């Protein structure tokens, strides 16, 4: 199973590191550059990336100038920028970028957007592994130690979400939103019930941890 590889070009070390550590813990490989020109030069030798996260205001080449370089190698781009004015957004997206996130942003939103773009471009990793459980997103199947486990559709969605963002605490509300949609009239107890089912069916009571007052975390 190959990990998705992400190119980060961001000149602020604090932000670059913050993104990197989140990518790392979510199972992505990555490379960081702090200068647009350096990134463009390095791309000639090594362009094996599934996605690029570009800051707009960069030394050397700026984010917009880097786009053609990315397009040459079929690397989809998500812009990260502090500018929130509408003209930049249109320019960025018109230029051919897949998405656009304004700072400040929370890591989970970034990860979800990355996933959506990768999925749209057909580059998303279709196999998820958590401990001895394997999820095949292509075939919608879940196996534990090689033995297939039958899950109801919502249980499958829930487990996939937890597995994708494993080792990360997900808020109950967030889970409800992502799986059941934001117009769902029920409350978060639905989430609790489905979690209990998952624990039972997959025998992961130890790995599927309850974080009091927050939500749940699936550990590796």
């Amino acid at each position, binding site marked *: 199973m190959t990990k998705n590889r992400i190119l980060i070009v961001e000149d*602020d070390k*604090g*932000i670059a590191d*913050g993104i990197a550590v989140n990518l790392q813990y979510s199972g992505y490989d990555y490379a960081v550059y702090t200068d647009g020109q350096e990134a463009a030069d390095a791309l000639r030798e090594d362009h094996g990336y599934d996605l690029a996260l570009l800051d707009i*205001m960069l030394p050397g080449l700026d984010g917009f100038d880097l786009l053609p370089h990315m397009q040459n190698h079929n690397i989809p781009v998500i812009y990260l920028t502090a*500018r929130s004015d509408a003209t930049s957004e249109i320019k960025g997206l018109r230029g051919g970028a897949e998405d656009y996130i304004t700072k400040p942003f929370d890591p*989970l939103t970034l990860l979800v957007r990355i996933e959506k773009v990768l999925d749209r471009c057909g580059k998303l990793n279709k196999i998820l592994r958590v401990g001895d459980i394997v999820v095949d997103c292509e075939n919608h199947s879940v196996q534990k130690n090689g033995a297939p486990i039958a899950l109801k559709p919502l249980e499958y969605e829930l487990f996939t979400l937890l597995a994708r963002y494993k080792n990360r*605490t997900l808020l109950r509300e967030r889970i409800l939103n992502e799986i059941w949609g934001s117009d769902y009239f029920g409350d978060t107890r639905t989430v609790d019930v489905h979690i209990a089912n998952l624990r039972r069916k997959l025998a992961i009571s130890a790995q599927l941890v309850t974080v009091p007052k927050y939500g749940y975390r699936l550990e590796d």
Partner: protein
Amino acid sequence: MKTKQNLWLKISILCIGVLCLAVMVCGALITLPAWPFTPLWRLVLAWGISILVGGVLIFWLVRRALKPFMDSRQTTAATTDRRQEMFIRGLMHELKTPLTAIMLHTDTLLSANLSQADARNSLAHIYRQSRWLDQMSQKLYKLIKLEEATFQTRPEDIPALLEDVRQSTADTLRERQTPLKITCATDSLSLDYDLIKTLLINLVDNASKASAPGQQILLRAYGNTLEMKDSGYGIPADEIAFVTDPFYMVDTSRNKSRGGSGLGLALSKRIADAHKAQLHIESAPNAGTTVRVVFPEKTSQ
């Protein structure tokens, strides 16, 4: 600015009113002999027309006279508004970056199961960004305080001031390996000690950041002038006019990685302005920069 505009508007209306009245009275006196012989409606009509014509004429004349004056006031107001807007935009932008980093790292610490080493790394970033925010707010505070400053200038010993600046910057200069040479040919100048010390420390800091390790930077005092010279990075010709704008940075990331906020020169310019001193900047890429603060004539002794 706005109240002054209103004042002039009021004065001009008053003038017009008075002149109209004068025209009316003159007109009445001139035509007085004819009153008994003219029907009332004719009198009223004549007065009406004369007031109207006279009023319009006077109004037009007054407006023409005041126009250049009002126009310049309007452009000054517009420029000030634009400057304020740019300042706020610059500030917002400068705040977003450290805030993003802090939020990213705190969110990560709270939600991801980080290893000890990674957790420490995130905490270090948060600390660094917080310190930077603190530095910036201190500079901003000084900038704002200068607006309302009623500061005092006194004759100050220049050699002592320059040495004080050397002491204050010794550590950073040693770290960057950019030795400072001081030449002082002025005994005394009338200035605010603390403000000029801040200004000189900023110039020394900039000169040092622009220089490569081993390059010397030069601080001189002669006549009414304090001069800071370096042989480092330099400023492109088309950017020299902007370097004293708040938050403006030539080559942003190079500056930021050394803790720059773009406020130093803005503050220095304000300090110079407050002293009615001129701030001159000469520079060329890779040929170094010279910054001169020239105090008004009567301050040297």
